[in-house]
């Protein structure tokens, strides 16, 4: 029997935590890391008689994301209650949007090794996050912290248009960049400000109908998403090959065990009894308001790339990396605006910054140093006040603590010694102390000079101009 070829069909539900200062329906802070329940009030703890009022910024962010993903904006929209009982949800319903979500029928273009394609966006709706449950092993009970309760989310529901883990990751990267450029969220999977649920089914290549899908949760890195997709595809193929059926269910991915297990099946699926929330008034987005939000849309990556190609004399590769993070692109432009050469600024970002980010397992969004300090450091090198290796050392401190490099160089006495007399004296001593190297050099061993330069730099505590050292050495030899 011929081997069957299967196609994977994937749709995504992506939750994004919006970067507002306050919750969606009350004036409690959304700041991370407060003491348990310190950011709560009667509204976000579901007290009877409390009245939720929509945060205008939430709506504007949602509309901005909708516009960036080519959606139709629902100019008359409203909120609905999704009813379920669980201790993380103090109202016994989540305020969400079912009937008239704020955005519908959009798409984004993705690019993978297989080429370019559009991924459809079915809808984007606004909703509130739930509280956090902590399991207490000692007392065998659960503890609830409602600081996250009422934090604004948008849920972006794609069409089942993706066919591989590569496409899923390209789609998520695309969403992340658009939303970061908008400043609507920092979109960190690890920290949960972006969460993806993967709906996956398989079918024989060319089959007209979709297979039965499963939904996978708990995917908090791109790596986990790729693993989960491969794992679930294999599991479903195995079931079908054994003549069994795929059951429609929610599964939880365990990235350590590289296996997913069933959480709940369709049989005990919830009946959420959605109905319009009578506490919240309908929202009308007028044409004027929509134009205002449109006018505020930032320059997105594609436009930025085009402008960089025209404005700055730096390689395509650099442009690609720099624009892959809004924060890095802002930093680049601000440093160049302070009068530094684009290629030099780009080099500090591409080489030293990227290296330190990788070493510290940080994202470009976490870069703390200011453009003023990077510009000052580059100027020190341009003015030959410090040499390249000292600059790298200073940069590490700038990267970590955002210190003023001018002051730091001054305080630590790192300025290059431009006193030729002192330098010549040191080199004379080095030459006198290393007759073997001198002889090697005269015997044609070019490398020997490297050793002498090294010894000189060491004696000068790294504060000499290597060009000058080389020049004096050659003279003396």
């Amino acid at each position, binding site marked *: 029997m011929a081997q069957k070829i299967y196609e994977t069909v994937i749709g995504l539900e992506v939750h994004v935590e919006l970067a507002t200062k306050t919750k969606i329906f009350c004036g409690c802070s959304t700041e991370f890391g407060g003491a348990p329940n310190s950011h709560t009030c009667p509204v976000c703890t579901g007290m009877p008689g409390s009245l939720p009022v929509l*945060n205008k910024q939430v709506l504007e962010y949602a509309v901005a994301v909708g516009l960036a993903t080519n959606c139709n904006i629902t100019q008359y929209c409203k909120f609905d209650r999704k009813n379920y009982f669980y201790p993380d949800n103090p109202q016994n319903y989540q305020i969400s949007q079912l009937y008239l979500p704020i955005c519908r029928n959009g798409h984004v273009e993705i690019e993978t090794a297989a080429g370019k394609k559009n991924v459809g966006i079915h809808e984007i709706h606004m909703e509130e996050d739930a509280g956090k449950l902590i399991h207490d092993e000692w007392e065998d009970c659960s*503890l609830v912290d409602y600081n996250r309760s009422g934090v604004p989310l948008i849920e972006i529901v794609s069409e089942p248009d993706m066919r591989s883990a590569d496409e899923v990751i390209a789609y998520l990267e695309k969403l992340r960049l658009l939303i970061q450029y908008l400043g609507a969220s920092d979109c960190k999977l690890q920290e949960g400000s972006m969460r993806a649920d993967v709906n996956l089914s398989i079918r024989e290549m060319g089959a007209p109908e979709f297979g039965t899908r499963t939904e996978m949760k708990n995917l908090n890195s791109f790596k986990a998403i790729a693993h989960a997709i491969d794992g679930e595809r294999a599991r479903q193929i195995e079931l079908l090959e054994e003549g069994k059926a795929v059951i429609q269910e929610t599964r939880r991915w365990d990235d350590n065990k590289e296996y997913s297990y069933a959480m709940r099946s369709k049989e005990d699926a919830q009946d959420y009894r959605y109905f319009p929330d009578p506490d919240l*008034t309908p929202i009308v987005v007028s044409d004027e308001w929509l134009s205002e939000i449109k006018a505020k849309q930032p320059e997105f990556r594609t436009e930025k790339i085009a402008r960089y190609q025209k404005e700055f004399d730096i390689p395509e590769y650099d442009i690609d990396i720099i624009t892959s993070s809004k924060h890095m692109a802002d930093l680049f432009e601000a440093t160049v605006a302070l009068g530094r050469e684009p290629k030099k600024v780009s080099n500090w970002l591409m080489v030293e910054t990227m290296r330190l980010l990788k070493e510290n397992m940080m994202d470009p969004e976490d870069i703390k140093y200011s453009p003023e300090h990077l510009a000052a450091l580059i100027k020190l090198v341009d003015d030959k006040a410090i040499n390249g290796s000292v600059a790298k050392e200073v940069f590490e401190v700038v990267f970590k603590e955002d210190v003023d490099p001018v002051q730091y160089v001054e305080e630590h006495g790192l300025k290059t010694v431009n006193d030729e007399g002192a330098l010549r004296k040191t080199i004379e001593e080095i030459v006198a102390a290393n007759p073997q190297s001198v002889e090697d050099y005269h015997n044609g061993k070019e490398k020997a000079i490297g050793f002498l330069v090294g010894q000189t730099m060491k004696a000068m505590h790294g504060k000499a101009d290597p060009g000058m050292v080389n020049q004096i050495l050659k003279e003396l030899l």
Partner: protein
Amino acid sequence: MANIISDETIEYVGILAKLELSPEEKEQAKKDMGSMLDYIDKLNELDTTGVEPMSHVFPVQNVFREDVVTNGDGSADALKNAPGMKDNMYKVPKTFDK
């Protein structure tokens, strides 16, 4: 009464609402729900062609707050309503991951 609520339906609604009803209460609830549905059927007799579905009872729209923090630490008051408390958190019976 035109609408008859079955035993299965009342059982299911009870589960959804987390209500345990005695046999007498179930009978009463079946009757009540039946007459509510009869009332809705009455409304359904109206011709609503071309009428927009109503989504709110008051003619108000666009009630917003600005994104400004107005609340401080409300945990002391909020936790007064907690069934139990530990480490400034609500103590509830053990739950499993959803």
